[in-house]
């Protein structure tokens, strides 16, 4: 019995017990359902062992949407608690846990898989490749991410959630002030998911550099591919810092090291420093692919080519360097003084310039275009003004002297939500709606789609604009309540209404998926939006091998040239096609990493050693396994092509 005591939640409440029961019942229902409908084999063959970038992309997207709802539930609880002064819905400890998990879940387990999911689905199609450079590694990336995400998510029912903020600053996150296993969950779960992300970064760099269709030079790549390319460069150089920081934090918490303690030669500020050396590049990892999506959507629905291709690329290359030299702006108030702060203030101002260049490029694209307002376009049009509010307040925060006033108030919270929601979330919703027909063979309903876009757009303003005002009035972030006399009540009530509106907007999206699944036409062809880039030139549903013949590229918009100017994209004869085999190893390694991480969190060393050996066993097996992939015979290729409406 004593053994099991460590798994108890240190600060329980009826809601947590109810969640335990709900989680238990859901797991039982899923297992029972799979067994009853005899779907285990299907699940294993088609999804768990797949190495197909399209399916991996879809699994990332499903996980991201699930996590959006987990993080959204956290958000609604926080806004409800703050809606009225001296509210008793949540106590301080629960509030701490909820804002900590909300931040981690939204950034690392919602936004990251969302962009990685879209990258997975779109990039090989967009560059005319049959898969990514290392398909099995790609599957491993996904399963490591998934293992990390699930591990993090069980924390609130097993052992207790992290409660030191998504930034997990030491010394608060050290053993003295965070005694539960919560922060261990933070260190280990993010570590596992982060390894997956690092592998994704390497994989996509190799894919984009080596697998482009003949004729597609770097300067003929579609803008989304460019943005993902830059984002992956940043991943490869920023994530190792997080890996090291988390490892040092783990050593502090579990092995009595003193990297971040305030005595024995430790330095707590080093954590904040390392965290933001990763953290600021991370926000650009999120925003660049989002910009890429907007570029695709805006040029498709402005019915013209993107204005200023070269300056778009140039500004992203500049961002890839500048994003590494601004991190200190996250802790101007830590005491390093006016000289250091001024340096980082200037670099911070500088990074707003290339960001602004991109905004103007989109505006010029729109200016000469024949605009068609579809749901993805509506998100993109809403993005421009809303994101500008976030960007301008970012520049305000970047002035170090002024930041002493704004730092850690609701003003800051409003800033980053006004960049991340219009910037990243709208882009992901636009991308999801835009690529939905390519993924699933039917379109999402436009009417419901536009309703949700407007609801989400307006609610974002209602939810986050008040925070600028209450922040300037002095409302601090991460406080679980405030007094009547402070006068913050009205702002927070408005904010709560906005948050509820956002929930309605997301519910509308879910309804739209259900509605369109039932009623939408399946007869939509392979290019329902009249788009311009390569991913729309192949069949819908996309065959396993993407392109039966590898396309020949000689412009930025090869597919458009084919449609409008009769250029030949696909030449030559059909041939047999070489494809990689499925593998169960990545999935098994995901499970092993989950168990390894769980044992590590609770300092159960014997299982840790066993699972470590098992993980190395899997890697050794991989190294010695002889798997040369397989050929899809010519007859099968011909048959598929004919069934999908003639070979191209």
């Amino acid at each position, binding site marked *: 019995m004593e053994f099991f005591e460590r798994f108890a939640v240190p600060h329980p409440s009826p809601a947590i017990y109810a969640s335990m029961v709900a989680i238990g019942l859901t797991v039982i229902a899923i297992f029972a359902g799979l067994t009853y409908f005899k779907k285990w084999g299907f699940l294993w063959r088609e999804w768990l062992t797949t190495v197909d970038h399209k399916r991996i992309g879809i699994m990332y997207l499903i996980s991201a949407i699930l996590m959006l709802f987990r993080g959204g539930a956290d958000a609604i609880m926080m806004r409800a608690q703050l809606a009225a002064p001296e509210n008793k819905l949540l106590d301080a400890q629960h509030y701490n846990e909820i804002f900590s998990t909300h931040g981690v879940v939204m950034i690392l387990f919602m936004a990251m898989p969302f962009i990685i999911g879209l990258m997975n689905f779109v990039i090989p199609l967009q560059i005319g490749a049959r898969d990514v450079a290392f398909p099995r590694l790609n599957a491993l990336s996904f399963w490591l991410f998934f293992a990390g995400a699930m591990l993090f998510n069980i924390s609130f029912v097993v052992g207790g959630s992290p409660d030191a903020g998504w930034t997990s600053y030491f010394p608060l996150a050290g053993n003295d002030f965070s005694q539960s296993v919560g922060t261990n969950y933070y260190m280990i779960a993010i570590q596992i998911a982060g390894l997956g992300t690092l592998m994704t970064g390497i994989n996509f760099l190799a894919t984009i550099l080596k697998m482009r269709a003949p004729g597609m030079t770097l300067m003929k790549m579609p803008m989304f591919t460019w943005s993902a390319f830059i984002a992956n460069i940043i991943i490869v150089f920023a994530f190792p*810092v997080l890996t090291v920081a988390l490892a040092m934090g783990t050593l502090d918490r579990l092995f009595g090291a003193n990297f971040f303690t305030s005595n024995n030669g430790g330095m707590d500020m080093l954590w904040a*420093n390392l965290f933001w050396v990763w953290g600021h590049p991370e926000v650009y990892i999120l925003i660049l692919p989002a910009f890429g999506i907007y570029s695709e959507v805006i040029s498709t629905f402005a019915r013209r080519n993107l204005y200023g291709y070269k300056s778009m690329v140039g500004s992203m290359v500049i961002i890839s*360097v500048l994003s*590494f*030299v601004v991190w200190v702006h996250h802790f101007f108030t830590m005491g*390093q*003084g006016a000289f250091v702060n001024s340096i980082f203030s200037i670099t911070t101002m500088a990074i707003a310039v290339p960001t602004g260049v991109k905004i103007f490029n989109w505006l010029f694209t729109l200016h000469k275009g024949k605009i068609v307002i579809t749901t993805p376009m509506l998100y993109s049009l809403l993005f421009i003004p809303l994101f500008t509010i976030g960007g301008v307040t970012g520049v305000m925060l970047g002035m170090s002297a002024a930041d002493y006033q704004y730092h850690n108030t609701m003003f800051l919270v409003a800033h980053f939500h006004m960049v991340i929601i219009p910037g990243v979330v709208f882009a992901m919703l636009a991308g999801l709606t835009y690529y939905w027909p390519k993924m699933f063979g039917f379109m999402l309903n436009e009417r419901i789609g536009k309703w949700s876009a407007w609801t989400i757009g307006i609610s974002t303003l209602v939810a986050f604009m008040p925070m600028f005002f209450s922040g300037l009035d002095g409302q601090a972030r991460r406080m679980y309540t405030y007094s009547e006399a402070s006068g913050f009540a009205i702002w927070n009530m408005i904010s709560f209404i906005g948050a509820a509106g956002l929930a309605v907007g997301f519910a509308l999206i879910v309804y739209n998926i259900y509605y369109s699944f039932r009623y939408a036409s399946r007869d939509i062809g392979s290019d329902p939006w009249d788009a311009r880039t390569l991913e729309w030139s192949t069949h819908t549903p996309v065959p396993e091998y993407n392109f039966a013949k590898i396309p020949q590229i000689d412009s930025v918009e090869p597919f458009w040239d084919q449609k409008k100017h009769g250029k030949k994209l696909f030449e030559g004869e059909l041939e047999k096609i070489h494809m990689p085999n499925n593998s169960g190893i990545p999935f098994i390694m995901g499970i092993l990493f989950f168990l390894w991480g769980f044992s590590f969190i609770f300092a159960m060393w014997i299982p840790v050693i066993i699972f470590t050996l098992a993980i190395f066993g899997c890697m050794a097996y991989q190294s010695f396994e002889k798997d040369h992939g397989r050929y899809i015979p010519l007859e099968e290729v011909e048959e598929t092509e004919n069934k999908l409406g003639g070979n191209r």
Partner: protein
Amino acid sequence: MMKELFPRKQVIGFIFSLVLTAVALLVYFMDMSFAVGMTILLVTAFIQAGLQLILFMHAGESEDKTTIYTSIYYGMAIAIITVLGTLLTLVWTYQFQ
């Protein structure tokens, strides 16, 4: 004939990297100031890394030469900026205030 088969460059490189390791070990075995020790470690580490990349990992020998060197320089630039920036914010600024 024999001359072409004998991997002269590699063997010399191997001996050189052993020498570098030995020099780095001196820091442990000999009594020297922190500054001198650190300098020796940094210099030998960078030469060693270069040797490994260029000679044994064939960084410059394929058509991807430019990509490989660009990413090495980019990585070095980022690492140096990060380290110097960190020292500046966490250490030097307090020494010169």
